[in-house]
């Protein structure tokens, strides 16, 4: 799976400046709120009166906050739940209807149908719950004010803060229930959609078992399992738009077993029902349910060690490099040259036996890219090797080096390939260097190779003139799998966090705007939040002083001009006042303004964690925490803004 950012909560708060941004935005909001309140009040009552009015509002906030009682908040919340129950039922009905026809669009085909399922279901849930959140919270307060039913509430001994927070709690509860039901239904839908089994399309007679000669089948294929001695020319029946092949494999103990290949992201367990009485080749088999498609791998990625990066590369002469550019637009993978001294070193920390579900067999997962400069032998994949080393302190000469022998393997591009290393070995792949007395001793992966949890993993490409692409997430230790169901719930927590942010935003807007305006404004803010990453990217590239980083086409104003006049992106703008104005608007007003605003709204794009589920990885705790913190902070801020707006609003004037 592609992981472009590795951030812990502390990194995010301190290094990435989230905390500073929060303080900055809070101060800006507070100051501008006070100023705005003062100006509006000045127009109404004069400056001195305005000062007192603003001060009074601010100071009254303290008792309003402290004096909030759960009983009253819950009462308001219950009202909010009751009045939106119908919308809740309608939304649910729409979702169920959407699920009924979803099968048309998702289909079972492709290489990994579970990815299509997860992407569609998360997208549908996200959209549906977002619309629900905006609809329930946008019209509630304005409608109450318009129909004057708000008097029945404000005339009661209830604080403004309780009205605002109560509604938030009510909408959050009904939204959470909706999301829980939607999540449950979609999980069942997905599991049922993916679940299937197969039968053999015909009996496998002995002549249908193709022998593997020199590593290939008679029809020129490499067997799907390297242990295969026969591969069947008979397939399974086509269910869920795919079929499987079968192979007879020889196990290390010499026994034979029958396995199905991995197609559409899964395999099946195979049980032999009938065998040929003479040759013992299986004739009929029975298949179990799909295996390996709904999983949640727990990876341990490389991490920075002191000043050393988590992943560093050397070029063909062995000096540090950023990797070779093989001409790809996407620079995620960094390439090393084959048949040279060029290496990629991954630095691992915190590797302890306790982290692995099965510490006796340490699994190393590889997901490497390949770039060929010449076609070479078409039938061979590019060969690479890894080497593991314990981290030896240069000053400490007493510490002996323990390392693995170079373990060669054939790369499998766009697949997760697993190399298994036994924990305890005697004269195996792990060796103690320069210590003849330990030659016949048993060495332990954790105690000898990673004594303090640290080790270096070096990757090389063996084939000359070919290149191997690596990224930090390309190589990791696979500690085990967590429950897919639990991972699914964690994925929905991202959507839940987004829902809370939208509800809070809509409530805050509804304290001073009318319903339809709230709807449009909230949708606008959400769209802005979704585009925030893109806006920052555009702003950075257009405002950059580095000409190479500048994007063609300029900012929004220039883009509009080019669009209307059908001018291509490379053509320079005509010199003159118009161009100067366009550039001024883009570079001095729009882009800096939009960029600044983008820090005040959550990046809604980041709340979708479906990729982790789709590719079968456990959602990173830090990422989830960052999402939740972002949503809670934003919601709290919106509540504060909503409270002050509601407090200063003259209900009777509405």
């Amino acid at each position, binding site marked *: 799976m592609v992981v472009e950012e590795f951030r812990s909560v502390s990194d995010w708060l301190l290094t990435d400046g989230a905390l500073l941004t929060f303080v900055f935005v809070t101060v800006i909001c507070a100051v501008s709120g006070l100023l705005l309140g003062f100006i509006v009040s000045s127009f109404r009552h004069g400056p001195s009166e305005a000062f007192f009015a603003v001060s009074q509002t601010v100071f009254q906030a303290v008792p309003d906050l402290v004096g909030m009682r759960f009983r009253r908040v819950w009462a308001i919340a219950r009202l909010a739940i009751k009045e939106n129950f119908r919308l809740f039922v309608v939304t649910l009905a729409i979702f169920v209807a959407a699920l009924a026809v979803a099968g048309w669009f998702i289909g079972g085909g492709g290489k990994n149908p579970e*990815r299509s399922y997860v*992407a569609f279901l998360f997208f549908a849930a996200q959209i549906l719950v977002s619309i629900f959140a905006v609809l329930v919270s946008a019209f509630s307060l304005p409608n109450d004010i318009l129909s004057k039913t708000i008097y029945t509430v404000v005339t009661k001994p209830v604080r403004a803060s309780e009205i605002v927070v109560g509604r938030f709690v009510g909408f959050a509860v009904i939204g959470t229930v909706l999301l829980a039901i939607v999540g449950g239904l979609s999980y069942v839908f997905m599991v049922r959609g993916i679940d299937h089994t197969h039968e053999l399309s015909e009996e496998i007679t002995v002549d249908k078992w193709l022998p593997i000669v020199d590593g290939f089948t008679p029809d020129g*294929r490499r067997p799907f399992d390297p242990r295969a001695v026969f591969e069947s020319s008979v397939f399974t029946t086509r269910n869920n738009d795919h079929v499987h092949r079968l192979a007879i494999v020889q196990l290390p103990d010499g026994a034979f077993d029958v396995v199905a290949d991995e197609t559409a992201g899964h395999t099946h367990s195979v049980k032999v029902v009938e065998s040929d009485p003479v040759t013992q080749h299986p004739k009929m088999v029975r298949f179990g349910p799909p295996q390996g498609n709904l999983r949640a791998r727990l990876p341990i990625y490389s991490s920075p060690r002191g000043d050393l990066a988590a992943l560093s590369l050397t070029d063909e002469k062995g000096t540090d490099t950023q990797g070779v550019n093989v001409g790809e637009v996407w620079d995620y993978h960094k390439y090393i040259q084959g048949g040279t001294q060029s290496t990629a070193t991954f630095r691992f920390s915190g590797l302890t036996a306790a982290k692995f579900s099965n510490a006796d067999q340490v699994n190393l997962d590889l997901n490497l890219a390949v770039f060929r400069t010449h*076609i070479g032998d078409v*039938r061979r994949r590019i060969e690479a090797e890894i080497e593991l080393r314990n981290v030896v302190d240069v000053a400490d000469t007493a510490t002996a080096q323990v390392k693995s022998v170079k373990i060669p393997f054939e790369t499998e591009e766009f697949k997760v390939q697993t190399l298994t290393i036994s924990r305890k070995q005697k004269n195996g792949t792990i060796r103690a260097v320069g210590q003849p007395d330990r030659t016949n001793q048993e060495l332990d992966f954790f105690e000898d190779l990673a004594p303090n949890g640290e080790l270096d993993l070096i990757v090389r490409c063996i084939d000359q003139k070919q290149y191997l692409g690596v990224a930090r997430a390309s190589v990791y230790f696979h500690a085990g799998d967590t429950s897919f169901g639990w991972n699914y719930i964690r994925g929905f927590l991202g959507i839940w966090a987004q829902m809370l942010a939208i509800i809070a935003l809509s409530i805050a807007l509804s304290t001073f705007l009318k319903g339809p305006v709230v709807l449009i404004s909230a949708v606008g803010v959400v769209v802005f939040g979704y585009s925030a990453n893109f806006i920052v990217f555009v702003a950075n590239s257009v405002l950059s002083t580095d000409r190479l980083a500048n994007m063609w086409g300029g900012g929004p104003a220039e883009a509009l001009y080019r669009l209307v006049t059908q001018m291509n992106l490379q053509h320079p703008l005509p010199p003159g006042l118009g161009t100067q104005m366009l550039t001024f608007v883009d570079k001095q007003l729009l882009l800096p303004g939009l960029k600044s605003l983008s820090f005040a709204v959550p990046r809604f794009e980041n709340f979708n964690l479906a990729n982790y589920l789709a590719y079968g990885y456990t959602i990173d705790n830090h990422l989830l925490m960052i999402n939740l913190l972002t949503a809670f902070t934003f919601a709290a801020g919106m509540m504060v803004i909503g409270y002050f707006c509601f407090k200063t609003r003259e209900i009777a004037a509405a």
Partner: protein
Amino acid sequence: MNFAPSHYRKAIYGILAAILLVPISFLARPNQINKNPNQAGEATGGTISQLRSKHNLSQASLSSIDPTSEVMKLASMGLHGIAVNVLWNQANAYQEKKAFDKVSGTVDTLVLLQPNFISVWEFQGHNLSYNISREFDDYQDRYFWVKEGLNFFTKGIAYNRRDHRIYDNLGLHTGIKFGVSDEKRQFRQMLRKDREYVDALVSKFINPELFDRPEAGGFDSWMLSYWWYDKSYEMRENLGVPKRTSDLMYWVKGPQQLRQYAENLSVDFRPGEATRRAWRTAFEAWTDRDPVNGRQGFGKRDITTSFGTVIRLEDLERQREFQRSIARRMDELAPGVRQQITQEKISRLSPLDQQILNMPQEERQYKEMTEMNRIELDIRVYEDEVRARAPAENKVKADNLLRELADGEFLVSQMDSYRYTVNYNYWRDFTDMESTVPGVLARQASYEATELVRQGILETYEEEVTDENGAVTKVKRDGAIDALWRYFQHTSDALQPYPGLHDGESTLIEDLMQDFTRFGAHLRDVGREWPDDFPMQWFIDERVRRYGRANIKNLMTTQDIEARKREAGLLDQTDQSDQSDQSDQTDQSDQTDQSDQTDQTDPG
């Protein structure tokens, strides 16, 4: 009652709106089922509806009505243009980030919104089978994605029942990806036994028995592509769907696949009678009638040219004969004039040109032959020149003949030009030659030579053979050099009746030149010289005579061989003087090439 002006205005608007309903109804009235049995099938709706029926533009006539596609279009509420834009961007972004399964999914959704836009199918089908498949390192993954691209095209068939281009693309991509790409050997090998793919995804459209060829070891990719093109032809001929490409490039495809099939059969397997038949089939499909599907051969197809005239490529010779008959009729109207003008033009030639003209054709060397092209133009007699000297009473008849001639000339030039575009003559002669017995024997010998070279056996060797009585005898077996010798002997026999194949540059000539060089290298490897009686020496000499010494690189000509013999003292003085006369002549005509010869000749 007192009406305000605004009320009047509203009333006028209402009346105008009601009046506008009349033309709208006239234009946009939907089609209705005509219950009158005599008028069944006639469009009865408004103008737009009638136009739609006339041009087969209704959704039902364009494609099967797919509820998924219709739901998508409806659900996007008129914004499906924007949705399409977003999906295209998404597909591009996914591809950039190498999330290919997502590209595939996005594209599947995209075509639901644009099911009848053929370019989308063409672009994305190509994208899947070319661009995405080549991203994968493993040839088996590439094979998977080529099939994904082809499957994508097959999905487009139901949506585009009146557009032959989906089938054309299936033919094109099946042919090229399986038959021409770097991994063609592996792809074709895998496809031969890929019954699952064929049964599940191809058999819905084409009967697998049609391209399951025992002589090709199973399913053959070129025959599969041939049948995809045949589906397209069937659509054009039986359903009368409008053509979307030029006739020439459209009708050439089917026969081309048959030729490729024969070619691959000759390379992948030991050639034999099956190969000869395949070449014969390719020849017949190219020229006269396709024996596989029973359709008109390429040469007999009506081809509408860009000038709007309809031609048949096979008619060229007949048309030329017709032109000559007109010339004869012209001669009858002006007896002796043509010869008179010819003589006048010849007399105006320079002495050197006259010498070249009078020289026997087989004696002309490269330079004379080049000059001869110009001289032929100089002495050419045009029909209007003949007409100008015709007796006055025949001038009107001559004028009529001139007009006929001009029309014919135009057709000849069109046929010539269209033949040139598809290399018609070359492929006609080539397939014909390959389908002869010497042609197949040559292929067989070449195949054996390649195998022997692979095994490292260059010279004749002896093999011990045990008979049924257990007696061991030694049998002489051919080495690669012997096999190549046979190859050149058969090729010489096969090639001689086709002078068109000796001309100019072609892959055949290029291959032969390489084979000669390969043969020379093998001879050197075993310490032997270029043979005196090389079976294709005539071919090498002819190339030198017509195109100069540089054309044969370092191969030996007869002159080189003679020179070698002289050096060895094998020729007597008389022979030497004869030869030196000839070589002087050559020196005179091609001094530059001769100097190259000294440098390049490899004595072996």
